[in-house]
């Protein structure tokens, strides 16, 4: 072992494995620009794209942490609809009982988030204490949580009884100085986008700088070794599923407030797949033990741009799933470890 450091050049496949997601993003960006030009580069377009993908982005960020712990949560879409249904129903009841609109909205919002967290804790308890595999436990949640929300509204839609206040969160934003759209209206950075990025930053920080994140990685990498190292496995796993529930509650709040209603048969349908896809495209392995939140964020943007391009180019929505599926498989192929 000569200590003289041999110059080490990373082989191409290793570089691709690490930065492939950024390259893919750049390519899609270039393609979009070429195809749509100014229309794509228009800030209003970005605002809309980010805004509509923020809820699934929030889910994907939480999912990244779950997957790093070598778990999975298939119930996120159903947690979203349940939390939204319970929250809006509660808010309507409060308004009907004469509570002031402001306190009803605030309470309803809190209940939405609390309900998501509670659902996540149910998953966590089943997995940690019931010793049920995460895939199975949350598959149960996928069915049960949606069915509960269908029962609440008779499979119909729940309209929020707050006229404008409730929808302010989902539709409003922070005004951006100097940026105006074509009609001369000032652009805003929607609250949902702000929440998405704030949560992503928080999660990345948990992962790289907090003890909880280090424990998640260690447990995901080798649970037996983590047990022998004296890590609090039960509480860490419980907390990561509760946290996922919390994120689902936040996503639910964004969604229901934007629509000012909850469609119990449609809301959150299939979001678990979009969230997992974004995580995988972002370079986090389903094997657990390693991962990155920033990759997931890029993954969300990649999926958003693909949908955007396909829609603009007039590709039938029926075919869009096939394209997305292809992209996911390609991402995994490129990023899989070179040996094994």
């Amino acid at each position, binding site marked *: *072992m*000569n*200590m*003289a*450091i*041999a110059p*080490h050049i990373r082989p191409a496949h290793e570089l691709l494995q690490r930065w492939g997601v950024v390259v893919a993003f750049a390519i899609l960006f270039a393609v979009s620009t070429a195809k749509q030009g100014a229309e794509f580069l228009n800030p209003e377009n970005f605002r809309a794209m980010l805004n509509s993908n923020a809820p699934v982005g929030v889910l994907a960020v939480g999912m990244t942490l779950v997957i790093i712990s070598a778990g999975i949560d298939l119930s996120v879409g159903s947690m979203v609809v349940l939390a939204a249904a319970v929250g809006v129903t509660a808010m309507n009841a409060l308004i009907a009982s004469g509570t002031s609109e402001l306190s009803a909205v605030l309470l309803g919002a809190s209940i939405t988030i609390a309900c998501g967290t509670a659902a996540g804790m149910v998953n966590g308890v089943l997995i940690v204490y019931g010793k049920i595999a995460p895939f199975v436990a949350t598959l149960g949640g996928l069915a049960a949580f949606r069915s509960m929300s269908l029962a609440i509204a008779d499979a119909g839609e729940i309209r929020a009884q707050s006229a404008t206040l409730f929808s302010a969160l989902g539709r409003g934003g922070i005004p951006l100085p100097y940026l105006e759209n074509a009609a001369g209206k000032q652009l805003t950075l929607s609250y949902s986008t702000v929440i998405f990025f704030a949560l992503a930053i928080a999660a990345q920080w948990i992962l790289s*700088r*907090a*003890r*909880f994140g*280090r*424990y998640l*990685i*260690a447990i995901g*990498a*080798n649970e*037996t*070794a*983590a*047990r*022998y*190292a*004296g*890590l*609090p496995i039960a509480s860490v796993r419980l907390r990561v599923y509760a946290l996922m529930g919390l994120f689902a509650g936040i996503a639910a709040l964004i969604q229901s407030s934007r629509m000012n209603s909850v469609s119990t048969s449609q809301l959150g349908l299939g979001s678990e797949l979009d969230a997992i896809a974004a995580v995988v495209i972002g370079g986090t392995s389903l094997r657990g*033990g*390693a991962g990155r939140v920033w990759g997931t964020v890029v993954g969300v943007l990649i999926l958003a741009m693909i949908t955007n391009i396909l829609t603009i180019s007039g590709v039938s929505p029926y075919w869009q799933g096939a394209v997305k599926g292809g992209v996911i498989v390609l991402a995994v192929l490129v990023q899989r470890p070179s040996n094994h």
Partner: protein
Amino acid sequence: MLRAHSVTVEFPGVRALDRVSLDFRAGEIHAIIGENGAGKSTLMQVLSGAIPATEGSVMRGGVPLRLNHPSDARRAGIAMVHQEINLIETLSVADNIALGHESVRFGGLIIDAQRQHDRAREVLGALGAKIDPSQLASSLSIAQAQFVEIAKCIASEARVLILDEPTAVLGARDAERLLALMVQMRMDGRAVLFVSHHLDEVVAIADRVSVLRDGEVVQSFERGTNGALTDVAGARVDEGVLARAMVGRELGSIYPPITLETDDHASCRCEPAIELVDFGAHGRSRGINLAVGAGEIVGIAGLVGSGRTETAEAIVGLRERVGTVRVGGVAVRFSNVRAAMKAGIAYVSEDRKGRGVHTTLSTIENIVLPSLDASTRFAGAWIDRAQQDAVAAKWIQTFGIRCPVPQRALSSLSGGNQQKVALARWLETKPRVLIVDEPTRGVDVGAKSEIYSILANLARGGLACLVISSELPELIGISHRLVVMRHGTTAGELSSAQLRAHGADEHIMRLASGVASDKDQTS
């Protein structure tokens, strides 16, 4: 038969092998020795196709072999037992042994389970291992798993056998059986290569010894016509000479002086640091009464399967237990390792790769993992990286851990260096009671003596230490007192004086195997 021709292997930041040229002949046992991180495993892995050579080649009969994958090597008749166990836990022993060359019928449609079972039993029988081929690999002890690995290698009928530290996890008897088998392989005309830190084995069976240091072959020895291992000048070579050749300097006694204050301890044993009363691991051991005082090192000897590891695991809450544990005089019951750790008890597992370390985490992260709380601020929200790096640097320095890039995954460290990390992460928790299970597994002689002196120093500072080991010289060398286990319970105890008396090793072996003699009954 096989030749390494100017093989160079470079890893990020380190040249693991530097133009190594060696010949491996049929009918010869060739031992490779060297310090931890010298490049032994790397060389073995190049020969078996697991790692590509950066430069140079592996040749047979003057033709370079294309070894891009272990399956290429297998086709070329080269089989290897790796330093770490790589069984598939969810498959049976027989399936593991047949892996890669299954007996199939109908063109692969059906696996001939009976044939595989019979073949596995035959090979395991030849090894003298009492292992049921239909048992799941996950239920094997480390030593049994090692035998299955060796059986896998032998079953492949390879002409070149490569064994990387095959005896590191075996007890004395199992090791002897394996060595005998290797000698038999040589007589069958196969080429046998092995790596070992047990220099006595090397002196006993190697026909040729090559010493690696920093990736280069620095010395070679050969068995002369008189049957003794000799150097180029024809002088006789013993373990001391080999050790010197490895580390490049004179090594004194590798065991620290035992401060015979044990008799004082005997008198102050009124307040032991840890006390086991009628203790055992549920279904595995029972009726163990043992007290370890602060400052005392107590060895635990016993054959593989005598319940030593299980008992230790029951103490720290990894297994269901029976009986009582008292720490500082108070009865305690730990439900997990964390609780035991908080009470100042640490356990270092014998299964380094599977339980002792996290191979995908960095060296730094590994060292601070159990004691991470000490490097965090704001209730865990912030890991103080400077602090964490300082802790890691301290241990890398103390143990002389060779790791070119501490931020890289631990799997980039050599086996012996990973073992030092496994110890360091628990020493960093500053335990009052330390239970170490095979603490020097795969560690070179120099580093062994370093570990012994660290343990002795800690004991002098008041640590109570339980050492489980299959290496008798080690146990005798460092223990103040020794307990022998057999069939899940204590079979006897040796005092400090008895340990240092002549014939202590035989005494221990008799107790461990249950062959009683008059002398034992009186002791």
